[in-house]
């Protein structure tokens, strides 16, 4: 008998095997009591860089709980993630769990499960403020799993070369003038002082949002400010904090490493230049570590300094860096059965508070905002720096960021870019931001 015959035989067997499988599937779905009935839930993931981590996690959970099968609905980086979620909802196939931006939790609020601290005891393990951050319009519908932060990143090796090892105190940068003096000293040593990444998400989503968030330490301070902009009862150019941040932006633009061509916005290239020490600072967040850690021949020690907006060290924002919960886990109750919702809640408990579940996140480098995370964990230098600011209580509450939905940061970010290359002046920028917010209902 040659191989061809074997192949033919197998081919003939195939339909038979398939038929048997189908029969078995039919029986298995009919039999069994309702108690240990297998539950299948789906997980929509917008953290595209860790699709594989979640898959491993689901496999492990399935080993422990054979009745629960979790299926990943992955998305790609830069793929239309919001659109995919919209189409899942529009076709009545909403995922059970979704790992999404806070803005999505607000958008889908009517369809989401509301967590309750009485029922879900494990929520107590969250760090202070996390429950508040996941509460939108009075309903706790999102639970966070990671903390991120941003500010002015600096390269420790470069700074040490300029100031001498150990002579630089990050706390000394608490006014715009001290930042200017700091930049001048670095430039005098022949190193470009800073870098702006010329993309609308960086300047619109992150930089401009600082001026909203620094209206006050409570989320309502920022959202209240936005509400007034939407009503048209205030103009952004009358706000001293916004003016202050724009003055600081002018300063950053003056010492910008990308000054010759500010809008190239090549993310990998910018990070590479910064990590190689071609410039001393960069306005960015600790998520950049995921790119930098894979680069060859770059520095590994970084820290954050605040972006001061005035010359008064006491002002909120001048000695703080941003700490934000970028993603939330939410559960859909509109398309999913009670059993599925319950299975999802149980899974979230295991994933977020069980040491085994947490380990997946820790190994991937996430900083988890839970009290029972093992204490000996060592993060990268950027995350450590953020964590230190957090421990000292020196963080800017970026809660209002969650309410900046839709195309806000693209549209206002595009205006910021025009201002950066001096295509428009500050008054035109203010007019543009005012009219954008007034057009939002």
């Amino acid at each position, binding site marked *: 008998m040659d191989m061809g015959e074997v192949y033919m035989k197998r081919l003939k067997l195939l339909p038979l095997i398939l038929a048997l499988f189908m029969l078995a599937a039919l029986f298995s779905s009919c039999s069994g009591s309702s108690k240990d009935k297998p539950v299948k839930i789906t997980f929509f993931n917008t953290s595209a860089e860790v699709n594989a981590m979640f898959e491993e996690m689901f496999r492990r959970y399935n080993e422990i709980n054979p009745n629960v099968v979790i299926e990943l609905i992955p998305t790609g980086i830069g793929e239309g993630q919001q659109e995919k979620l919209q189409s899942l909802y529009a076709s009545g196939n909403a995922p059970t769990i979704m790992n999404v931006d806070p803005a999505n939790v607000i958008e889908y609020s009517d369809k989401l499960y509301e967590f309750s601290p009485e029922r879900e005891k494990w929520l107590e393990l969250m760090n202070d403020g996390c429950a508040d951050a996941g509460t939108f319009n009075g309903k706790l519908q999102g639970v966070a799993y990671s903390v991120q932060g941003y500010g002015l990143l600096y390269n420790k090796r470069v700074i040490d070369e300029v100031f001498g090892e150990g002579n630089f105190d990050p706390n000394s940068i608490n006014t715009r003038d001290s930042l200017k003096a700091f930049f001048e000293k670095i430039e005098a040593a022949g190193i470009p002082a800073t870098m702006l990444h010329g993309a609308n998400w960086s300047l619109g989503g992150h930089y401009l949002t600082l001026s909203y968030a620094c209206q006050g330490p409570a989320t309502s301070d920022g959202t209240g400010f936005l509400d007034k902009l939407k009503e048209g009862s205030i103009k952004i150019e009358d706000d001293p904090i916004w003016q202050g941040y724009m003055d600081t932006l002018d300063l950053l633009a003056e010492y910008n490493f990308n000054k010759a061509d500010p809008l190239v916005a090549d993310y990998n290239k910018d990070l590479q230049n910064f990590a190689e020490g071609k410039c001393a600072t960069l306005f960015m967040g600790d998520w950049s570590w995921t790119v930098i850690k894979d680069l060859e021949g770059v520095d590994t020690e970084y820290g954050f300094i605040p972006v001061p907006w005035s010359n008064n060290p006491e002002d909120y924002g001048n000695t703080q860096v941003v700490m934000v919960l970028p993603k939330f886990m939410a559960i859909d109750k509109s398309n999913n059965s009670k059993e599925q919702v319950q299975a999802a809640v149980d899974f979230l408990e295991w994933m977020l508070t069980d040491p085994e579940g947490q380990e997946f996140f820790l190994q991937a480098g996430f900083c988890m905002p839970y009290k029972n995370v093992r204490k000996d964990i060592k993060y990268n230098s950027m995350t450590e720096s953020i964590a230190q600011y957090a421990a000292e209580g020196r963080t800017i509450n970026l809660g209002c960021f969650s309410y900046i939905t*839709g195309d806000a940061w693209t549209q206002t970010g595009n205006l910021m870019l025009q201002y950066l290359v001096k295509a428009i002046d500050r008054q035109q920028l203010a007019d543009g931001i005012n009219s954008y917010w007034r057009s939002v209902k």
Partner: protein
Amino acid sequence: MKKAIRKKRNDVGAFFVFMSPSLFAFICVLIIPMLYGFYLTFTDYRPIADTYSFVGLSNYKAVFTDKEFIGQFMKTLGYVFFSTIFSNAVAFMLAYILTSGLRAQNFLRAGFFTPNLIGGIILGYIWKFIFANVVTNIGKRLNYGPLMTSFLTHPDRAILAMIIVTVWQYAGYFMMIYIAGFVGIPRDVIEAAEIDGATGIKKLFRVTIPLMVPSFIICFFISISRGFMAYDLNLALTDGDPYGSTRLASMHIYQKAFQANQYAAGQAEAIILFIVVAVVSVTQVMLTKRFEVES
């Protein structure tokens, strides 16, 4: 009489047997969504909300008062105009040269056609790299100011970059159509013209081009309609950058519908775009058809 009716019935039956599967698919994936989409433009539909209500023509009113859309639409017109002219001019020249009996003409034909086999997204990323790194590097070597900054960071030059890449992408494709046109011209007509004393340029303009009008119709039609609906290249090459200045009509519609969450308004813009594309391409075909001649 009876026979004729039966034959007709058979014809209709055969028509349905052969056509119905594709007709069914066509109706399901094209006609119904289009009509449904048209219907939604009269509502305030959003995919997230459960209910929607009728708002009459206000979405269309919004389209004509949306300065951004009008500005981007004008840009699209310019893009379509220049990319159509240049891609066809380049394609025609290539076809002319590559039917004149060059040695390596088959190899060259294949070479010029290749860009068309690369998808718009990949093509966009390749050219993004070229504009951002290769061109700027050449500029630095030559110390020539305008080339030292990327083409993609200046609004007008970014549109120019889009046109360059579009021409590069389509010229090879249209070249193939023009080559077919050249080859299809009967030898006897050319010979007759030569005997009558027509030479070089005169032969080209008086004999060859009039006989190739069908090829022009096809190529212009394709480049105009694809130009208006350009999306993948736009997304990969500029993504609307710098600061939203190179967002062409399709990208604006997508952004409006799915990112600004104004689905019905975006759909209304899509309908307007559809009408414009239809009118422009049909007019173009009718106008150029008048130049068609029989050999």
